[in-house]
């Protein structure tokens, strides 16, 4: 498998990068670590003739865990290893550690991870394979191969970094055609509902940085994968919690690896704000979250199992929080696991 020929551009500034993206609109991709873009190119999943390499833009390399600012080009390896990140944003560190494998993490970036393509057994294949299977909705075909008569695509959002950042309430800086904008990370993933795209970033817009404000949240990240490495999530869950005077003032849950976009469970968690975390909250939350999980059979593991494990993770992670809370250790205590 070889990629079709393409031209590589190496801008030195954000302005230059956005201008290039505009010039080649419709025929261009940003190239960060390339660990997702390049396999896609080799497999003919995208056939652009221009790649804009982001590695030479200094602003994208900002790495300031004290202020909670992470440029899009931050490597997964540095998020995984940095002691300050590990201490202040536990779930971020755990998620970075759980993504892909060690070699990939040295080139893979945070920005690329947030915008990684959705995945499906029938899509992540070579051009030869897909043609022999007459394609599907997401690439060169007219029917979904997973859900018969499906009019939408169910490909799975499979990035590891989005759930913890969503649970921690991250915002993102975006450089678009109309200039710089800052918005909640979840805006990047709404409205969702169709796996043909993994995010809602307009074409040509550049993700500049991710910002995390509050370093005092308790957080966890648990991931289900077929093997210990380097597999994508088959279901993952991140939790961010903070209580002041025994009452929840931050309670967010995000699920990855199940639906076409990361699922933020605000409507489930919001009603509990102002109340103390308790067994009752855990029970009700686990049950409501479970009802929102509808995986389809387009990854390696069985769907009922994926659903079971995600709710199981949620229960054990919340229980761990409760246990720590009773010992009055409410912040920055490592939690979460990779299942």
């Amino acid at each position, binding site marked *: 498998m070889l990629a079709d020929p393409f031209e590589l551009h190496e801008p030195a500034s954000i302005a230059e990068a956005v201008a290039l993206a505009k010039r080649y609109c419709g025929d261009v991709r940003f190239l960060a670590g390339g660990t997702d873009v390049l396999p896609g190119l080799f497999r003919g999943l995208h056939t652009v003739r221009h790649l804009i390499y982001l590695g030479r833009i200094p602003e994208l390399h900002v790495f300031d865990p004290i202020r909670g600012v992470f440029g899009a080009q931050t490597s997964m390896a540095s998020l995984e290893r940095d002691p300050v990140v590990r201490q202040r944003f536990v779930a971020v560190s755990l998620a970075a550690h759980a993504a892909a494998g060690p070699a990939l993490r040295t080139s893979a970036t945070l920005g690329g991870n947030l915008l990684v393509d959705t995945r499906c057994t029938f899509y992540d294949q070579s051009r030869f394979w897909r043609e*022999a299977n007459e394609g599907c909705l997401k690439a060169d075909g007219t029917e979904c191969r997973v859900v018969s008569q499906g009019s939408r695509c169910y490909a799975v959002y499979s990035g590891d970094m989005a759930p913890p950042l969503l649970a921690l309430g991250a915002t993102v800086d975006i450089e678009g055609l109309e200039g710089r904008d800052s918005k909640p990370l979840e805006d990047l993933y709404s409205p969702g509902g169709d796996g043909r795209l993994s995010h809602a970033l307009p074409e040509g817009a550049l993700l500049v940085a991710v910002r995390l404000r509050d370093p005092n949240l308790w957080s966890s990240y648990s991931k289900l994968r*077929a093997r*210990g490495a380097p*597999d994508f999530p088959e279901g993952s869950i991140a939790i961010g919690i903070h209580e002041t005077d025994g009452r929840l003032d931050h309670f967010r849950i995000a699920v990855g690896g199940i639906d076409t976009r990361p699922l933020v469970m605000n409507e489930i968690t919001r009603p509990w704000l102002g109340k103390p975390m308790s067994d009752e909250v855990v029970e009700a939350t686990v049950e409501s979250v479970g009802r929102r999980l509808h995986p389809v059979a387009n990854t*390696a*593991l069985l769907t*009922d*199992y994926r659903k*079971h494990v995600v709710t199981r993770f949620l229960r054990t992670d919340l229980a761990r929080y409760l246990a720590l809370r009773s010992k009055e250790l409410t912040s920055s205590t490592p939690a979460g696991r990779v299942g």
Partner: protein
Amino acid sequence: MNGIVGSRVPLVDGPLKASGSALYTADLTLPGMLHGAIVRSPEAHARIVSMELWRAMEEPGVSAVITGDSYPRSFGVLPITRDETMLAVGKVRFRGEGVAAVAATSPEAAQRAARQIKVIYERLPEYEDPEASAATVTEKIHAHSPGMTNLQKEVRQEFGPVEEAFRTAAHVVTVRGKFPGVTHAALEPHAVLAHYTPDDRLTVWSSTQVPHYLHRALSEVLDIPEHRVRVIKPEVGGGFGGKGDPMPHEIVAAALSRETGRPVRIVLSREEVFYLNHGRHPTRHTLKLAADAEGHLMGFDLDALIDGGAASSFGTVTTYYNGVLATGPYRIPAFRYHGRRGYTNRPASGAMRAHGSVNTRYSMEVAIDMLAEELRMDPMALRMRNFLSPHTTTINEFRITSNSVVRCLEASRARSSWDTKYRKLPVGRGIGVACGFFISGSNSPIHFTPPFPQSTVHLKIDVDGGVTIHSGASDIGQGSKTIVSQIVAEVLGIPLARVRVAAVDTDSAPVDLGSYSSRVTFMMGNAARCAAEDMLRQWQKAAEEITGRPSAEFRAHDGRLEAPGNISISYLEAVHQAMRHHGALQSSGAYESPSLGGKFKGARAGTSPAYSFAAYVAEVEVDVDLGRIHVKKVWAAFDCGRPLNPMLVEGQIEGSIHMGLGQLLGEEMRYRGTRLMNPSLLEYRTLSPVEMPEVECLLVGEEDPEGPFGAKEAGEGPLPPVLPAVANAVYDAVGLRFTELPLTPDRVWRALRQKERGGGLQKPPAPKVDAR
């Protein structure tokens, strides 16, 4: 003894490989070289109605386009089942089969041109189930199958009073096993470089385990006399059986080179390697064991149905091996085997590490565990009661020589603290045992009529004092270069650094039947020892000429030839003296396998001059909530005879355990009908380093009387026992028997839930009878 044999010498080619200086086939280039690409069929079973080639011919940089009609002669690793062609002729039999090939100035140009080739197919009925292949079909995959079936091979064997054994047995256990296909997943994808030159000679460099079989196939298909074909084997990045057959792309590269007069290189993509496959067969079988009230085995009955895919490959041997290799290491008085291998429209299966024996071994060892439970006996004790003794003959007339299986079992039992753990660990934790048995080389060569030696080694030494070893045996990463160097250096009493192994080149190396069936150490090792002894005699004679002392008095040691009375000359003095008569010295040694086996049909399948034995214990933890099996530790007691290099043996054991656990826990060639769903190393899940358990190797074998310096095999036998040892440990942990692989966490979780609904998880009953 010079102490080189038996010591932990690092691989002689290790520094080259670790530093990236070793040259693999894909590293090789020649001036004017072209790149080949193969057009593959999107259909699994279809007639080729037409092919439009002209567009590809007109693409820039294209030098040749060929189809199966250029060289339609069929080939196959076994002369009795030649049913592969370099490219499809008339019809395609599996998705991914080559239908045309292009040679162009760059890989990109070749691929672009390949995409321009339009083929029109007429679909035929597809067969995905060997059961259907064994019944009447409407469309035959190969014309030569019997009647209107797609059967490739059927074996029936019966020894001893089977019916009576099962009628009178106190206990009968049955295992219905189901195993998907798995594949080798060697790190290096297949690659070939072929150069047909104007002097009507063909030279082919290929990543192959058996240069000799490739040599023959090239000659036959391309109709070039064997003496004008030369095969060179560069470094090989793993084979595991997947590079043992002559393969279509090797012939295609040669054909393209002949067509263009230029060198042509083809490097397969990982996906193409999956379509090439020739991996372990998907199998379903029913295995029954009968025993008396004391636990003596009385009968063994096996019915196996094997999915061969679209070609024979080694399949005839596989069909026999599924049965005959399952009897040892046990004494079985009655044995019946029925095996069928059907063609299907899937990539062909073939030989893979521990060829033909893994799936049956699994069910056999699980059956013994079940039997032990029925008898309320410790499974170690039950095994002890039924082992073959050394120097005996099996029911199917295999000659057994050295056999340390008892020591293996004792060692793994002691080291694992079995007696304090079996049925005594808390629910969720368990320990299990399984044994193994494998050939040290197939006794009957595939090709040789009239009989020639299985292996020949030549040595050469010139004025520089370095000994060059010429052998046709392939080092495919397993370390055979190191072993042959150790043997030669040991006999000649010179340092390892004075020995070098020439690259395998059929122009200069004597024939060796290659690296498969775990034959190299035993057979090439014996040949090397003879060659070195022949060389030593020349040195001793020269020493006599120099010193006047009788040659027989000289011993080779530390680079010198020494005789009693403080007489000592350097080996180089002797070499130079001997060279006065005829220049550089040469010597030769050969290994001929003995005549073995019974007189019945298929009697030679599974015969070997020696067998390895094994007894493994595995300890596991089952996460009942998540369905995950964590293998904590494996105690691997192995009888490879005398380990010539314990470090390499341990490497083989660890690698085998890694590979076996991959098959047990995750690997599966996943099909939807005839469509392979996971032809990539991300979705085809070999074991990751995270899952690899601690392994303690226990090398407890005794010297084998016929092996070189007492050695037997260690390349394949270490694999099979680990799968059932873990499965039996899982049973000990949670009381669940798994007879279908792989044990992925979701499937384990489902089974656990069912079990919980049916009354909860608990430890199986403990044995009543004492372990001994």
